[in-house]
């Protein structure tokens, strides 16, 4: 397999953002944006990706690793094709989020932060997604489709079943999301 390379898109974005930070500070400041974009490109951030980023931004791999492990949204392991993230925080809990989350676990045969055997869905319990009035809420991301992350609101067992059915068929039910 050919060695990994940051995409042209990332390179263009680095050049565009670089002047927005003061002299000598840009490389470090771009650590988060580049981590995020690299995850979009590769699906997750492993040691090889860390080295690429460190070399490109003139940072130590130790710094980039420290940053990448601090932040929840950076995946160390490759998630399934779909990443289903269910909020169980207070606003959603009050509206039955744990029933929804338990249904996901049962149907996918996984516990929190695990991927279904067919590599299709990774399930993660997440904290408040700032949609608390429309809880329970979930967010779905699709590998290789950065335009996706969609919110699914006012979930109940019927709606989550429909969502899980669609994911099993290989499709994000955008008609149910926003």
């Amino acid at each position, binding site marked *: 397999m050919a060695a990994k390379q940051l995409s042209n898109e990332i390179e263009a974005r680095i050049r565009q953002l670089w002047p927005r930070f003061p002299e000598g500070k840009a490389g470090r400041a771009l650590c988060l944006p580049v981590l995020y974009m690299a995850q979009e490109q590769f699906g997750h951030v492993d040691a090889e990706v860390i080295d690429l980023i460190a070399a490109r931004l003139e940072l130590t791999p130790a710094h980039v690793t420290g940053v990448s492990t601090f932040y929840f949204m950076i995946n160390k392991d490759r998630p399934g094709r779909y990443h289903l993230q269910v909020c169980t925080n*207070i606003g959603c809990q*009050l509206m039955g989020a744990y029933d929804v989350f338990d249904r996901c676990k049962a149907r996918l045969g996984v516990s929190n932060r695990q991927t279904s055997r067919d590599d299709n869905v990774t399930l993660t319990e997440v904290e408040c997604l700032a949609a*608390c009035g429309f809880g329970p809420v979930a967010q779905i991301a699709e590998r290789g489709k950065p335009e996706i992350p969609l919110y699914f609101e006012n979930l109940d067992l019927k709606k989550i079943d429909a969502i899980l059915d669609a994911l099993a068929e290989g499709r994000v039910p955008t008609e149910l999301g926003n």
Partner: protein
Amino acid sequence: MGWFDVKIISEHFGVPEAKRLEYYESKGGYLNARKATAMAPESIAAEVQASNLRGRGGAGFPTAMKWSFVPKDAETVYLVVNADESEPGTFKDRHILFWNPHALVEGMIIASIALKVRNAYVYIRGEMAREYRVLQAAIDEAYAKGYLGERIFGSGVSLDITVYRGLGAYICGEETALLSSLEGGRGWPRLKPPFPAVKGLWGQPTIVNNVETIANLPWIVEHGGKAFADLGVGRSGGLRIVSVCGHVNKPGVYELPLSITGRQLIDEVCGGVRGGRKVKGVIPGGVSMPVLAADELDVPFEFDALQKDERIREVEVRPGQKFDLGGGRTLRTMAGSGGVVVMDDQTDITKAAWRIVHFFAEESCGQCTPCREGTGWLAAVAHRIAFDHGRAGDVDLLASISDGIAGNTICALGDAAAWPTLAFVTKYRDEFDAKVRTASLHHRSSPHPAPSHAPAAPHDEGGGA
């Protein structure tokens, strides 16, 4: 007069085109930024001073006063808008970003002129992918029109706005953690002082303001600070955007007078409690804030009233002993982030309390021992109580752990975990005690002893409140 006669930020919420520059300008948008380019920075600051605008991010700090801390001879000043909104129960900034991004951009232009800022940033929560796209599109439109960049509106003022995305860490909403993150590091809070207004981003004076705070500025420039102050109550100017969730018939985001009480908010704005039930408790400003009991809802949801009104009980560390907020001050509650959580009489308060401390334990950055260890311990004990494994003395333990965290940490996340816990125990002591009592009865007759630690995956027992 209804509650909805005046609106500052939310008037066009729900109108699909409202996020477009053309629509915004057709309603008078950007006239105030244009006007500000011809104003002296001091006169903008004077209007903000007269407006009694207070920060909408959580602390309610007077905006003009914060701005005045920037050293007068500073060469480089940064403006950073806090769009990290992640305080559970709070979802107002997300609505502003999605429905009225140009009000934020215009407000940032005005603030930047007042503070002599050349480079401004918006730190937006990583999960808000949709809002990021909308905001970036709005900024791109403003650049295309010459409202951002070099010599905006043809004036001598230049301003760049850069949107910076977080990567999923609640603590990055705390202003010093936010700055650590924006510099490209871990989101670790820093000790204050020095305050960011003196020494912030890359060591330079930096003003961090919330999205809603900044989005009020165009109105203040248009109508004058006094008009804004007149809309408010006492030392708090303007209206407030609250987000209401939980057991009400019409949850949502509402821009309301600060004089509205909790009771009016629930009954007159949100259509009452679902199923005609009664209220058990209301969190007035995000889960960091002490809960209000059902008989404490006739106080206006205004910064000073929620802190001082004697109809709200003082939070205790044990029955009869008031919690000391420092300097002999006591704690009732605070307006916080405007995130209102309504819990009806069917709610298991112990489970709600557990979910809240569980959140803080997950989100502690781990820098200080009282917070790192204390929040984890709180979560374990609260879990034990909520899921029927509570032991004698556990309720007092919750309170004493909280008391040990509060005031002893680098940032306010420690207090944010301790205060609501103390309030839950103060106001719903009977429910906590009853849970522990039933647990001990249950386990005396059970052949299986209760586990000595909280299970690794607490929600395996079903976490519904």
